[in-house]
């Protein structure tokens, strides 16, 4: 059978031309492996929140709007809105609210104790709305009673080992006992809602309604989700929501200079499309998905280009066979089938090999993308067959050009010469090489810009000092009330330079309040971000005071320090002594006593907004300790001192520079991925170039020998062989420059503070590309040039 004949020939050719086959198969299999890994990542991201049974009818209700010209788009809402909507609108049939703690918490069950970060409170309807897999417990009762706690399998194992935790207790912050009422399966990670500990909302209702603003329509802290009826018209619900807060507050918010519009956000769109303030957790990015997908295609394209180029160049070894087959009666169609068939065989071998590469590369890939992907889905027959079909299609496409090319030659032209040489100046092949290097150089330029920007972010003056600052989270009220004695004790320690307490630290989420500046009307309310701090905060963080004075006593409890941006926004040239009203009807205000230089209290991705600091009394959330650079001994001393004062919790701390740098995890991940894929793309392009150049050099062995016999030096031979290649790489560079420029300026626009692009980035990247190309391509040439000339001639 013809097909059997083709497979046999394909396999024999693979063994006959080992290096060529190895380069081809390796290149394609790497291309397949990387594409499949990236596809698994993309699918994982796209599937977020799809597992809920009623996913298409579940919506979050964020708020967008304006406060005195300052735009607002927040993921949270007020507590009463959801139950009110269910009562008022028949299209909204259920709701669940979630409150997330933003501070660290402490859980223990007497023997096992840990600091944790992820505690959320949710209504008892949680399992009616979401389809998280409750493997133990009753979904109707698990979150009904106050102080009920549902945990994940992982957490259960951490605290209770193999014992059944249902009915057992965990203590929160050494104060509140929670009863375990349910266990969730660990595969909750494909949701934008992170769950480790899920407590009942009724706990908040029991504790302190006022503290949590459960009845307040103007306190926005709750992630609010609703389920609509099957045929609900979403547009009409959005219209209904538009003035809902106005109706409930019974005021015209616009007259107050405020616009607050709740709206529906489909749950499946949150993970990749939502970039609101106060997201429950850092979301992914659709842009990232596009970038990764494009890069996967590029890698595969480079692998296919290599295949086409190498197979075409190599086909001169097959010309005798082609001519004989034609003479013996094969028509062009048969030859095309044969060569495409061989390409498909190679592609299938490459695909099989790629499955091993995938297993090998998965841990590295997970590290780069910061996920815990498994590849269960690709072991399903459906996917395996789909990828096999994909490999066959790649084989057909990649094999087409060489097949048409090889089969086009006239047998008599081949027979007239003993050896038929293809011109190494084949235009199509050169176009493909240029294309590969456009991609490679674009990647080199992009990677260097990503890294430069990341370094810029890391080293850009922030207006405060994040290095050598140790942060201790303050977990509860007793600790907060004891803060002065803690500070006194720690301040005495050697190595401690300064110590301050505050309700917030740089890099965390900040909340804003509307203030009416002195001399302005009620409708000119300004949203100002704010937090509380003691008199040591500015010196501990090295924040510069440029006007007025610092806090110096409890008498300053109605005083505030503001930043430069607020001064500029209010057009205050002499801000000291001016008032900011937070309750203008009752004449309640705060007085400005000082102005600080702007500092980046949030990430460099956001512009510095107006900021206000008031004096910290009993609501400390963080202790910030400036210590000397050789801080191991100092930390130990602080730990011992802490344990002497408050041994209810194990000593817990983190360094400010670590938590601040975590703001750029997404960018770091992108940087890691970019460099990995750039190296891969360069490797593939170089592999292909090596194969092509080896072949081309072999073609010119006789010429090299003759030139050497007549006196050419090795250097002259290498220059002759690299001249053409260098020309093509330079052409590729100049084409890569505008493409790279467009891509990187678009990416850099995500940053408020960014690097200036320099021509040297482009020049150096081009030189790197050129160097790699020349070394790769001339490796074989140098070998040939160094050989005894008679060997070259004897070879012929």
């Amino acid at each position, binding site marked *: 059978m013809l097909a059997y*004949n083709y497979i046999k020939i394909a396999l024999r050719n693979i063994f006959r031309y080992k290096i060529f086959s190895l380069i081809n198969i390796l290149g394609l299999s790497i291309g397949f492996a990387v594409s499949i890994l990236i596809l698994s990542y993309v699918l994982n991201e796209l599937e977020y929140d799809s597992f809920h049974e009623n996913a298409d009818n579940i919506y979050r209700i964020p708020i967008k709007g304006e406060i005195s010209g300052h735009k607002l788009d927040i993921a949270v809402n007020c507590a009463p809105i959801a139950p009110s909507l269910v009562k008022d609108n028949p299209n909204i049939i259920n709701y669940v609210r979630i409150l997330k703690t933003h501070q660290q918490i402490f859980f223990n069950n007497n023997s096992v104790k840990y600091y944790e970060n992820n505690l959320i409170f949710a209504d008892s309807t949680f399992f009616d709305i979401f389809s998280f897999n409750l493997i133990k417990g009753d979904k109707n009762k698990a979150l009904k009673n106050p102080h009920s706690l549902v945990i994940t399998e992982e957490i259960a194992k951490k605290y209770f080992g193999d014992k059944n935790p249902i009915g057992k207790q965990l203590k929160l912050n050494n104060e509140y006992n929670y009863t375990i009422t349910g266990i969730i399966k660990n595969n909750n990670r494909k949701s934008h809602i992170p769950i480790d500990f899920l407590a009942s909302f009724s706990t908040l209702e029991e504790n302190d309604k006022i503290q949590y603003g459960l009845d307040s329509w103007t306190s926005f802290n709750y992630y609010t989700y609703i389920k609509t009826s099957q045929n609900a018209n979403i547009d009409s619900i959005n219209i209904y929501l538009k003035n809902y807060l106005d109706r409930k507050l019974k005021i015209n918010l616009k007259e107050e200079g405020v616009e607050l519009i709740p709206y529906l956000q489909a749950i499946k769109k949150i993970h990749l499309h939502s970039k609101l303030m106060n997201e429950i957790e850092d979301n992914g990015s659709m842009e990232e998905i596009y970038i990764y997908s494009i890069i996967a295609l590029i890698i595969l394209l480079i692998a296919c280009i290599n295949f086409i180029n190498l197979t075409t160049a190599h086909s001169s070894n097959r010309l*005798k*066979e082609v001519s*004989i*087959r034609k*003479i013996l009666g*094969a*028509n062009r169609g048969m030859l095309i089938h044969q060569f495409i068939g061989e390409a498909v065989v190679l592609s299938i071998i490459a695909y099989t090999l790629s499955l091993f590469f995938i297993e090998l590369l998965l841990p590295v890939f997970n590290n780069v993308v910061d996920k815990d992907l498994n590849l269960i889905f690709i072991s399903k027959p459906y996917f395996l067959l789909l990828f096999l079909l994909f490999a066959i299609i790649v084989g057909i496409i990649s094999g087409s050009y060489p097949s048409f090319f090889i089969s086009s030659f006239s047998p*008599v032209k081949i027979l007239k010469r003993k050896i038929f040489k293809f011109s190494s100046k084949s235009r199509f092949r050169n176009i493909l090489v240029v294309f590969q290097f456009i991609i490679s150089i674009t990647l080199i330029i992009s990677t260097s810009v990503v890294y430069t920007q990341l370094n810029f972010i890391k080293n850009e003056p922030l207006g405060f000092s994040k290095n050598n600052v140790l942060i201790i989270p303050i977990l509860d009220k007793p600790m907060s009330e004891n803060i002065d004695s803690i500070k006194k004790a720690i301040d005495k320690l050697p190595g401690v330079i300064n110590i301050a307490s505050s309700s917030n630290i740089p890099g965390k989420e900040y909340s804003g309040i509307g203030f009416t500046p002195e001399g302005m009307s009620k409708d000119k309310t300004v949203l100002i971000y704010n937090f509380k701090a003691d008199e040591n905060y500015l010196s501990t963080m090295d924040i510069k005071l440029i006007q007025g004075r610092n806090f110096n006593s409890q008498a300053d409890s109605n005083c505030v320090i503001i930043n430069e941006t607020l001064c500029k926004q209010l057009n205050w040239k002499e801000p000291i002594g001016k008032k900011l009203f937070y309750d203008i009807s009752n004449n309640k205000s705060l007085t400005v006593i000082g102005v600080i230089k702007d500092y980046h209290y949030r990430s460099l991705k956001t512009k510095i907004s107006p900021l206000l600091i008031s004096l910290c009394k009993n609501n400390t959330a963080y202790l910030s300790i400036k210590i000397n650079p050789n801080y191991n001994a100092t930390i130990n001393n602080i730990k011992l001192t802490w344990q002497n004062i408050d041994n209810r919790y194990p000593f817990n701390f983190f360094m400010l520079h670590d938590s601040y740098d975590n703001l750029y995890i997404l960018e770091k991940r992108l940087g890691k991925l970019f460099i990995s894929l750039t190296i891969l793309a360069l490797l593939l392009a170089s592999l292909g170039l090596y194969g092509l150049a080896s072949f081309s050099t072999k073609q010119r062995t006789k010429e090299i020998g003759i030139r050497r016999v007549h006196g050419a030096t090795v250097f002259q031979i290498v220059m002759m062989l690299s001249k053409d290649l260098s020309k093509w790489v330079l052409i590729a560079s100049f084409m890569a420059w505008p493409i790279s420029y467009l891509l990187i300026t678009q990416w850099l626009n995500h940053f408020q503070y960014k690097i200036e692009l320099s021509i040297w980035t482009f020049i150096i990247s081009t030189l790197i590309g050129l160097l790699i190309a020349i070394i790769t391509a001339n490796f074989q040439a140098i070998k040939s040039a160094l050989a005894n000339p008679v060997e070259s001639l004897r070879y012929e």
Partner: protein
Amino acid sequence: MIETIKLCKVFRNENFETDAIKSLDFNVKKGEFVSIVGASGSGKTTLLNILGLIDNHTSGEFYFNGINVNNLSLRDKTNIRKNNIGFIFQSFNLIDELNVYENVELPLIYQKIKAKERKKRTEEILAQLKLTHRKKYFPFQLSGGQQQRVAIARSVIGKPKIILADEPTGNLDSINGKEVMELLANLNNEGTTIIMATHNISDANYANRTVQLFDGNIISEKVSKAYYKSSNFSN
């Protein structure tokens, strides 16, 4: 069987033009063994390539079995070639990736003969040419004489009406060369028409008729005594 009338072949490139064949009138009857002799560059191989439908003539008429080849498409020429013509080359031109069995079988694959029939015929011809014990060998494992025997087996397995042999003994020593010529003579005796290009006079003497080419023209024609004895030739 083959007839050319004022056949011409001109090779052209940017700088010059060569008349490889000049207004050649040539015919071969069925069952004949014709040898074309001449020095290098006389046009022997060019003529053979045209007769074998693997090259095109520039002008003139060429009839193959009564069919005017001038107007045939590439596909038609391929079909005529695979069903009627066998080729033997000086440099054997076996496919290196195929073993002896597969090389010999190849023409039958292109003729779409079924596997069972192919096996039968291949085994037969290998036995006939004493190649059965080498059937799994690859060309590089064979001597020159053995390779040429394989080429002959391949050329006859499709039961061609005519065999075109271009310097079949050119790369062989005298003993192997004689063996190959004996094979060709036997094939001719069995009825196969053979046209052979050679510059070896002793090889040419195996033929019934010898045609001498010089600069693309026939300058002489000689028939052997055997030609007159075997007068069963037809067109």
